[in-house]
């Protein structure tokens, strides 16, 4: 067969392609916008070596040794004391809530035991649900040793300056003692999968009606916007629940992920999270002029959700501005909720503080979607 290539025909296709590209402003903007967003997120926001992690101190002993050690821990750069606690119950709660990553407990009579050479225990409890967020900090902790105390051990205590160390640093990885990454990833996957499918499916739902011309027929019928919205959303809520069930089952059977908390509570919060994603998807679908644009908007929402929510990279490793952005996203809060329920056994009280931001997001996105839905073709 003769090689048959007509540059003129190829040129015709090429110019047509450029004209179409220029017509679709949003696509054009995305082609420029997505690389910039990725550059900023990966370049500035993401940091897999989080420092200055919020730490609470439960000091039953306020001796000079204790203070020196806490200062040394802070000086490593990985810890930032943000709270003084007074009881173990408070410590448990702070870790469960996630308001601190570490709790340092200085036991009673720390100084006396130290001076007597009884090697008291300095307990550091870490919220290890995300092993990546704490591993470097814990490694740093173990290098803080004797040297830190030597300056305080003078005179008769000089003998304690030498081996073995005068105290024992004991690190307890709470919630995920073996540091199994899957324990953190698999529950988080519930949120990621839901975000992607829910936003994408609904964003296509209304756009498809416009693109195929069926909207004209639908609008000419007595059907109300709220009826269309509810009718389009409910099927995907069911799809969402099926997805969650599949992931939970796999989590249990394949990865033996612990499930300490109440699954009933989880499925209750799920409604809120799914609804929030559907609402944003629905908003996209009223903004997009084609299914292609709807897909792009979904991607534009999904990318920061993956990167800024704490799913792929530790949330506390990000700069403040990125954390604020992350706090807006429903996925950020849902990850905390699902990890809290499954790994920490959290209940209603701890869940609520992350549930209301999702609720607020739902309210705003839902209102936007309803006001954007046009009842005419104007």
């Amino acid at each position, binding site marked *: 067969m003769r090689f048959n290539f007509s540059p003129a025909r190829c040129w015709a296709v090429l110019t047509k392609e450029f004209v179409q590209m220029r017509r679709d402003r949003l696509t054009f903007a995305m082609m420029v916008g997505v690389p910039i967003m990725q550059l900023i997120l990966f370049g500035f926001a993401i940091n897999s070596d989080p420092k200055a992690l919020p730490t609470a101190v439960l000091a039953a002993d306020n001796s000079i040794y204790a203070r020196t050690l806490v200062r040394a821990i802070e000086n490593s750069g990985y810890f930032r004391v943000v709270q003084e606690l007074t009881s173990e119950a408070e410590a448990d709660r702070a870790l469960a809530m996630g308001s601190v990553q570490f709790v340092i407990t200085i036991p009673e009579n720390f100084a006396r035991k130290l001076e007597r050479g009884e090697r008291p225990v300095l307990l550091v409890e870490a919220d290890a649900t995300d092993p990546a967020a704490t591993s470097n900090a814990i490694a740093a902790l173990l290098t803080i040793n004797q040297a830190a105390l030597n300056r305080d051990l003078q005179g008769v205590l000089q003998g304690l300056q030498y081996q073995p160390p005068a105290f024992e640093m004991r690190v307890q990885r709470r919630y995920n003692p073996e540091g199994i990454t899957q324990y953190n990833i698999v529950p988080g996957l519930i949120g990621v999968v839901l975000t992607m499918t829910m936003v994408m499916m609904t964003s296509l739902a209304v756009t498809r009606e416009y693109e195929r*011309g069926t909207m*004209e027929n639908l609008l000419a019928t007595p059907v109300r916007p709220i009826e269309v919205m509810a009718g389009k959303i409910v099927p995907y809520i069911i799809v969402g629940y099926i997805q969650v069930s599949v992931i939970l089952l796999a989590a249990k059977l394949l990865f033996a992920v612990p499930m300490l908390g109440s699954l009933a509570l989880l499925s209750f919060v799920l409604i809120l999270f799914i609804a929030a994603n559907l609402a944003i998807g629905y908003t996209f679908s009223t903004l997009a002029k084609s299914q292609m644009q709807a897909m792009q908007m979904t991607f534009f929402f999904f990318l920061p959700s993956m990167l800024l929510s704490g799913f792929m990279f530790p949330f506390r490793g990000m700069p403040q501005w990125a954390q604020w952005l992350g706090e807006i996203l429903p996925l950020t809060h849902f990850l905390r909720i699902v990890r809290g329920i499954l790994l920490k056994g959290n209940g209603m009280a701890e869940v609520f503080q992350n549930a209301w931001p999702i609720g607020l997001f739902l309210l705003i996105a839902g209102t936007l979607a309803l006001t954007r839905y046009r009842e005419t073709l104007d």
Partner: protein
Amino acid sequence: MSDVAVIDVEGLTKTFGGRRVVDDFGIRVERGQIFGFLGPNGSGKTTTIRMLCGLLTPDSGRGTCLGHDIIRESALIKRQVGYMTQRFSLYEDLSIRENLDFIARIYAVPNREHAVGEALDRLGLTKRSAQLAGHLSGGWKQRLALAACLLHDPKLLLLDEPTAGVDPNARREFWNHIHRLAADGITVLVSTHYMDEAERCHRLAYIAYGKLLITGTAAEVIAHSKLTTWSVSGPDLFGLAAELRSVPAITMVVPFGSTLHVSGTDAPALDAALGHFRARPGTVWTPAEPSLEDVFIRMMDEAPDNFNA
């Protein structure tokens, strides 16, 4: 009851991107009438129909449809109107039955299964009811769409080129059906480009470049045009047509099968101008009734093109 206006609108105006697509439009359509809506492509027929059923909000103008205000009460109007869109707008990925079922549910048609079954029977599609609507041929899609918009027993039918691409047999059936419905008191507004269909309407409206040019019965429209038409046959009609077009008294020369229709608005002047053409050997001249087509082509030529102004 025939004095009840089902559609009564005036001053309807719609602008798209600075262009007046519909300009000061007003009609009255009485109950049980079949009202034909004609005009060249892009003249604003679809836009007008969309304003009547609340799909587009007019920039100005007012009126009622089935006694309800077209601007404030479009929700009430939608319930009693059957609108057939110009472009197929049922779901191609649903089967024929599923489409009808969906529409019947939306309108809360009583005794739904029966109604859908009957519609399928009437269409003759009962055996193919499980077929996807997207796999139907163009004409069948039209027929399905018509069946769908009749499901809820509407009082007013707005049909936007319902027979485009439909074969002659099915078109005749369709028009018989429309006349039956009209006899039962249903009002029909139908847009079309077919002259034979225009002649089957009780009344006509002709719109060009967004402006309503004339309304009336077919006979009234023809009479109003004051056209006098001659039909000519003979050798080299093509060459003859070119010659005739350069004569000032002749306003229009249109090929019509194996003849030419030669028209003018001033009968004596036309007669005089045709004098020496009549003497051509082989040509046969006969007086003809101007057709609706002649009239409409004439009106379109005359209408000021405000789109390009």
